[in-house]
């Protein structure tokens, strides 16, 4: 049965995706599989930290942290004990543009696990002591990172890149904004975000469509259809060419750099994926790896990646190098961007990048939770299951001319906005 299936020519992945629409109108994608007695569910609702009201930054993050801190008749302690007694995994997180949730359970506990999950999604209590506790945990995290180089460059970068935009703010809030958040803020935010029109769900594992349909209606059927999201404007990375230096007394300079990217819906998107792979996406093969690390020993970690916020596609990257050689490292980074922009990739680079990107696609589907996560992302992008079978063809179709055009668009004159934490020499 498996002999003719290879990475290079997989049979249809899409045909194994069942699309479920429940009587209450909840939609989910299901991949039914009994190889391991587990069920994994991932969901995402649109609207995350970017929806935090001004002055109440951290609200979406606090909301995500409180969903499993007591619900229904169970206070926080009783809830956590129930989770452990079933050995279920339940977790939530807030990102910039979404709030996501995760459920994983042994198949024999599916009914009880969904019952707990339903409580978190509909009846989270937001008890005062739980709010204080999670707020304290978030505050401790903020203080822990106050002088962490990675956190410092992330802040300096987003403030320079997105002036006045929700993306410039701290997703988990600031100490003073966390203090302001109340139970009523949490309830309002839940009402704004938790709506079926914003919801994407994927389930992978040992559960049939009929059972899942019933469980989904119990868990999500009570949600209102419409949410209440504030509009977020589109923005491109600002301040290209600027250097934002954050003084920190450490021997190494940590850098984060970026430029405008290419949106997923753009016809050059897959060409941009290929170009990024050649520049800094391939771990041991990329130009940045070879020029910065392999040839010059300037950094342990150096990379670039395409990153798509819903309202801002970006090319971002990072490196960390000793203060004395920080200027040299930034010069090499920008020179590599410029060379790839002006000369384009070679045919050999293009072919190798395409082989990697198509060949490695299967590696994204080797665990239930990874498969479910991929299926949620595809739904968020407004695509059909057929994308699973079409994606590699889109990579394969990228021509040298496409890649050259995308490189010029993506890398322009090679200049980047860069934030640096440390005492860098040769950068001003």
């Amino acid at each position: 049965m498996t002999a003719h299936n290879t990475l290079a020519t997989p049979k249809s992945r899409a045909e194994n995706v069942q699309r479920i629409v429940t009587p209450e109108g909840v939609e989910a994608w299901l991949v039914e599989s009994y190889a391991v007695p587990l069920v994994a569910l991932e969901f995402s609702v649109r609207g995350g930290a970017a929806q935090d009201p001004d002055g109440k930054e951290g609200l979406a993050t606090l909301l995500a942290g409180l969903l499993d801190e007591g619900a229904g008749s169970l206070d926080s302690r009783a809830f956590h004990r129930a989770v452990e007694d079933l050995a279920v995994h339940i977790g939530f997180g807030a990102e910039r543009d979404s709030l996501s949730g995760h459920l994983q359970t042994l198949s024999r506990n599916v009914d009880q696990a969904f019952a707990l999950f339903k409580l978190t999604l509909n009846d989270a209590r937001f008890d005062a002591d739980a709010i204080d506790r999670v707020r304290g945990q978030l505050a401790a995290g903020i203080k822990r990172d106050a002088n962490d180089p990675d956190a410092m460059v992330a802040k300096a970068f987003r403030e320079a890149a997105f002036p006045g935009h929700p993306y410039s703010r701290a997703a988990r809030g600031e100490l003073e904004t966390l203090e302001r958040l109340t139970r009523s803020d949490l309830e309002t935010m839940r009402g704004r975000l938790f709506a079926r029109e914003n919801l994407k769900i994927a389930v992978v594992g040992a559960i049939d469509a009929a059972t899942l349909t019933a469980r989904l209606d119990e868990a999500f059927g009570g949600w209102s259809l419409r949410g209440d999201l504030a509009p977020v404007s589109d923005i491109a990375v600002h301040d290209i060419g600027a250097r934002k230096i954050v003084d920190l007394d450490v021997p190494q300079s940590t850098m984060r750099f970026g430029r405008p990217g290419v949106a997923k819906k753009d016809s050059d998107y897959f060409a941009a994926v290929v170009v990024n792979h050649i520049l800094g996406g391939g771990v041991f093969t990329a130009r940045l790896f070879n020029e910065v690390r392999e040839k010059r020993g300037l950094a342990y970690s150096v990379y670039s990646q395409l990153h798509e916020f819903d309202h801002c596609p970006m090319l971002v990257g990072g490196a960390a190098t000793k203060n004395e050689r920080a200027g040299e490292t930034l010069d090499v980074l920008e020179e590599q961007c410029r060379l790839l922009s002006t000369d384009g990739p070679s045919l050999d680079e293009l072919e190798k990048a395409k082989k990697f990107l198509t060949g490695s696609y299967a590696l994204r589907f080797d665990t239930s939770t990874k498969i479910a996560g991929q299926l949620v992302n595809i739904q968020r992008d407004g695509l059909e299951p057929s994308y699973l079978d079409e994606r590699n063809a889109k990579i394969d179709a990228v021509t040298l001319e496409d890649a050259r055009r995308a490189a010029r668009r993506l890398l322009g004159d090679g200049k980047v906005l860069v934030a640096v934490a440390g005492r860098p020499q040769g950068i001003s």
Partner: protein
Amino acid sequence: MSTQTSAAIALTPGATAAPAPGAPGVAHLKLDNGMEIVVIPDPRTPVVTHMVWYKNGSADDPLGKSGIAHFLEHLMFKGTKENPQGAFSNLVAELGGQENAFTGYDYTAYFQRIGKEHLATLMRFEADRMTNLLLNDDVVGPEREVVLEERRMRVDNDPSAQLDETLQAVLFAHHPYGTPIIGWNHEIEELSREDALAYYTRFYTPENAILIVAGDVDAQTVKALAAQTYGKIPARAQAPTRRRPQEPPPRAERLVTLTDEKVEQPSHERIFVVPSYTTAAPGEAEALDVLAHILGGGPASVLYETLVGEEKLAVAVGAYYMGTALDDTRFYIFATPADGVELKDLDIALDRVLDKFVGAQLNEEDLQRAKTRMIADAVYARDSQVSLARWYGESLATGLGVADVTDWPDRIDAVTDASVIGAARKWLDKKRSVTGFLLPKETADA
């Protein structure tokens, strides 16, 4: 789209039961030259995980050459006569694979994840670099700089990592677990091509290596492929021996305080020296594992419910037993104080909770809850061939057998309340521990 449910392609797990700890199907074989093979069948996907583990890690670094195991791990990507620098990595990338390597205290491992039809190719390249590594000073020099940057990134930029490094050094007065895996800066600076080659020649032998393959492949096929590649490497007669200075009995509790102006959030950590799965008496490591879970394995644990939930002295607290180690190992308790709580008060509270715990009967519900979670986690691990491969690799590289992994859930299930309390009394003795305080500068000066 259809409702077909059992085609064995990447997205859709097949109908065959996957292997797991506790399930049959994991094969343990040996080549004539002494190289061990473990095959973990996973028919759900056409992807294989291919790993080679060497039974040597940073604790086997020669005196004065700290970091050599890790430095060599980096240098293993520098090529051979047949496959010059970059050839292996380029090939893996072209075949759509992912690769990396890691160094621990007790092992060094190299791995790739790739389409199963490429398994034989990977074996050919990995076997080649087991014996044919070529190094010249042109590649050794820049790579040493890369490792120094890695150390700056991991340690020199981060006061909590500096405290952690110091705690390990104080905890182990004699055993090399007290030396960081990456090495001390001044010794990394002096590591040479000759040091790397001497270490390579000593440890990179078939008798010292374990091949782990997880994926949709059967054991006999893997063995046949391995025999054509790894099997061609001549045996060296016997595996290298690991002789490490052992720790004397600890006699004094220790407190280490690190203050740094970059610290704004204080934290507390306590580490005990305890037996590992390899050194413990039967059942004792399992009891320590369950103990760590009951004490600090999440928000339903004793320490969390008491110090975070009831007394509000901490915002986070946890415990962790690092059971996989060749020699006696560590049991960690870590806590983040609530705003305004002094670390010394949190420390006293921790003592009080531990004293009460060892002086009382273990709550049967707490024991059952911990076992349920731990045994379930072994089932969750079956969803990831990489997790399973790592579990077997770590275990075999630290002197355990395949059965120690497959029987683990049964042995956890057999842990009694008396053995948990007994382990806590015997091993969570403060004399066996070092406590670390991470503090802002002004607090310490006050």
